[in-house]
């Protein structure tokens, strides 16, 4: 199977799963934004998804995408370290055209994974998991679809706000390289398109992560300074 045996095939798997995950982030961000405009609307989305069969199928697909992306990342990194050889250079210089993120995708990925673990324990465990396990004690105020309450509880704490912002920063770096790199791997690139894709990557990623950050900061301010009830 060429997606396993060949170097280009392995990279294609990284690209396709990566692009799918960017699309997921886009949907996630769009849903989060609703919380800024309408708390009822946001909880309606939570209710609509919940642990319904389509949401569960979606979550499983998503988990599979993450796992494939992470397993391939570890595998490729190990292969590449082996290809690099045991002797390292004494002096190395990073040419100006080489992005810092591009050489640190694995480290950034690790930070992203830590963030995901934090995020799953903060939210998913109290929402979808509570509903799957039918254990309403886990859910905020006994309602697993009350995402707004969870957001207020979580982002009241500045430590969590900071952790989430660091996490978003890592994703931003990861995506600014990952986005155009994925299209390069799929062969959709040349002298002209590389400039376009890099520009699109930067703008798209910045908007995406800024909106995520906006929601976190919005709820932090709302709870801390505007005295919104939890």
């Amino acid at each position, binding site marked *: 199977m060429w997606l396993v045996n060949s170097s280009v095939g392995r*990279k294609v798997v990284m690209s396709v799963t990566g692009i799918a995950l960017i699309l997921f982030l886009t949907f996630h961000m769009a849903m989060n934004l609703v919380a800024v405009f309408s708390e009822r609307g946001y909880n309606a989305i939570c209710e609509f998804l919940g642990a319904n069969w389509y949401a569960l199928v979606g979550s499983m697909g998503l988990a599979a995408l993450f796992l494939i992306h992470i397993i391939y990342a570890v595998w490729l990194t190990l292969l590449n370290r082996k290809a690099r050889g045991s002797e390292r250079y004494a002096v190395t210089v990073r040419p100006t055209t080489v992005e810092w993120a591009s050489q640190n995708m694995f480290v950034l990925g690790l930070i992203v994974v830590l963030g995901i673990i934090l995020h799953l324990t903060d939210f998913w465990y109290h929402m979808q998991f509570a509903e799957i396990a039918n254990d309403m004690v886990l859910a905020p105020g006994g309602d697993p679809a009350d995402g707004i309450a969870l957001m207020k509880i979580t982002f009241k704490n500045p430590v969590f706000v900071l952790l989430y912002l660091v996490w978003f920063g890592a994703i931003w770096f990861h995506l600014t390289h990952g986005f155009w790199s994925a299209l*390069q*791997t799929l062969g959709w690139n040349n002298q002209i398109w590389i400039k376009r894709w890099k520009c699109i990557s930067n703008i798209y990623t910045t908007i995406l992560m800024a909106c995520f950050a906006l929601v976190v900061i919005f709820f932090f301010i709302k709870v801390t300074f505007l005295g919104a009830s939890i």
Partner: protein
Amino acid sequence: MDKNISFTLKIWRQRGPKVPGAFKEYPMKDIPGDTSFLEMMDILNEELINKGEEPVVFDHDCREGICGMCSLYINGYPHGPATAATTCQLYMRRFKDGDVITVEPWRSAAFPIIRDLMVDRGAFDKIIQAGGFISVNTGAPQDANGILISKKVADRAMDAASCIGCGACVAACKNGSAMLFVSSKIAQLNILPQGKVEAGRRVKAMIAKMDELGFGNCTNTRACEAECPKSETIDNIAFLNRDFIVAKLKD
């Protein structure tokens, strides 16, 4: 007239592929700025021979930037700090008086060290043997100019063909990937009508050989194109990816 400079060379010495190596320092005195880097290495070797020591082993041949034989990883750059130039095209005027110049061999698992600064780049020849050619029936070959090729296509193929196979891309890559070399060699042939006939077979054979020889997986860091003495771009790598994916989907 360039002024003379004195500096210290820190050179990787290793007696054989299996023997552990180490850096050794050599002070160099009054080297004129218009000496080429390899001439400076010759001066050092002459001094070493006169002292009865073993000269430093390094690769070189044409010394005019077209054969791809010279290597050397100088102060963190394959082929030294000059851009779009090979080591033989590097002059000592780029360095300052009192500098410490670190000279290392290409370091990659697929390029084992033969001795000192010389590495075995035979892996590249094996990749070319796997598919870097076009098959032509001998006897009554067509005239070379019988097939018309547009200037744009010819230029693109020529740009890819300017790769000299020196291995700087592998040396620069943190993943030890040979994609810039392989993609240049594939693009050079697959772009032209004569090479297009075997495009799918070629790309599959050369990638398979590249993977088999232990080169790494490209992660698009672009370190290769920054260091390429012939300014090959990752445009070629996108071309290779495209041809490879199309060939595999056709199977």
